[in-house]
């Protein structure tokens, strides 16, 4: 068998075994660690932080928001103290930091902390967030309109072995590449084995 066929073929079989491991990892069921549901009314031009936690790449945060008006939902990679601290630092005499103007100022000054930004129009929105590092995560809702909006919000946290979508996508790409690389070597390997068995059988 030619050397390059062996090298590529064994590289392919290694990729196949890694893909199998990834697939297995993605099949391990996630376990829900906490679930919180809350209802509130968000006044016109107001914002609120609804949930905060420390997230690791092995935790997924699922949140769904249902509103009877227009809302902005932000998932920020900071804790709420940081947001309030920033607002108070820039507006020392402020007593009510929950006006959307201050949140917008904070977001304009710190665009990097926005992990997700979504708009809800008279309906429901659901998102899942899996961080790529250890980070604080705060779910913030803001009502840019002048009318009050009723909100139903559910937040749940799930413990994962690995980010399922990412690992599955990788496995689905690795499988065909590994298979194509391993195919010529596999055929030669099987031929050699068959010949050996045939020779042994004829000797017997």
């Amino acid at each position, binding site marked *: 068998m030619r050397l390059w066929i062996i090298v590529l073929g064994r590289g392919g079989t290694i990729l196949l*075994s890694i893909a199998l491991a*990834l697939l297995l990892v993605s099949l391990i069921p996630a376990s829900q660690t906490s679930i919180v549901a809350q209802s509130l009314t968000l006044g016109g031009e107001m914002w609120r932080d609804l949930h905060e936690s420390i997230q690791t790449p*092995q935790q997924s945060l699922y949140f769904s928001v249902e509103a009877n008006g227009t809302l902005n939902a932000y998932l920020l990679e900071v804790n709420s103290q940081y947001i309030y601290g920033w607002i108070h630092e820039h507006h020392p005499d402020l007593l009510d930091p929950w006006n959307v103007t201050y949140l917008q100022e904070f977001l304009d000054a710190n665009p990097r902390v926005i992990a997700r930004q979504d708009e809800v129009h008279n309906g429901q929105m659901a998102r899942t967030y899996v*961080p790529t590092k250890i980070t604080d995560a705060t779910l913030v809702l803001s009502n840019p309109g002048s009318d009050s909006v009723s909100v139903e919000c559910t937040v749940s946290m799930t413990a994962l*072995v690995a980010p399922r979508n990412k690992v599955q996508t990788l496995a689905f790409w690795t499988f065909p590449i590994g298979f194509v690389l391993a195919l010529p070597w596999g055929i030669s390997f099987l031929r050699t084995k068959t010949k050996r068995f045939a020779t042994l059988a004829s000797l017997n």
Partner: protein
Amino acid sequence: MKGRPFVEVFSSALHEDYRFPIIETFAFLYALSTFMFASFVSVSTPGELVAYGLISSLLNLPLLIFIILIFKNLAYGLGSDIEKGIIQTYLSYPIKRRWILSAKLLSALGVAILLLLSVQISALYVLAPDVVAPYIGTVLLTYAANLSFPLLIAGIILLVTLILRRGGLALILGIVLYFALGMIQTLALVVSSGTGSPISLQIASVISPNVVLDRYYQTYSPFGTSELWAPTFTEVLVYLGASYLIVASLFLVAYLYFSRRFGL
């Protein structure tokens, strides 16, 4: 034309060390264990500490798997090559003896290390890119500190296999050494705590620099209390260098023995 015989010895060693599906099984186990054993410190600590904690958390079982692979390749593989006279055939090739040993070690150790690092670091990158990529120096330093101890045992096994010309005894010695030296590290911590002196920890750090790296990051941690011994980063590098110097010396002795004293 030493290239051709070297490639021949190397490919023959690869064929013997990694028969189908040995390398595939190890790649599968490394990939799986990376995800299964990875754990993160769940508080906002410095990024370097998170990277160190992540690598340390997932290395226990993969290192044992790695050591099994090395034992198989060196004690069993090289030992049976000597017993069967395959090495003696290689010695008739038109290349220097050190190249024959290099080809064997490149297959037995080089490929094993490459497999461990490439599979684990890639898997870690999939799991937590923002932990691994910015602190790749810390990641590699942690691997270097953890690999020194298995390489030390590999050096001893190599030397014993060459001297005794038998893999079986070297394999038993390797297993005994692995557990004995592992216990010595724990003992060093107990002695240090009991006597209040860091000397035993410093000695253990020369054998396994993971001890000094662990002390360094304990000091660095916001919860760390390292009154006993708080090494600086330079000290970590010195102990790491010293341990690899010992490993290199062992391999050098093995090379010298194989080149000059190893008879047919």
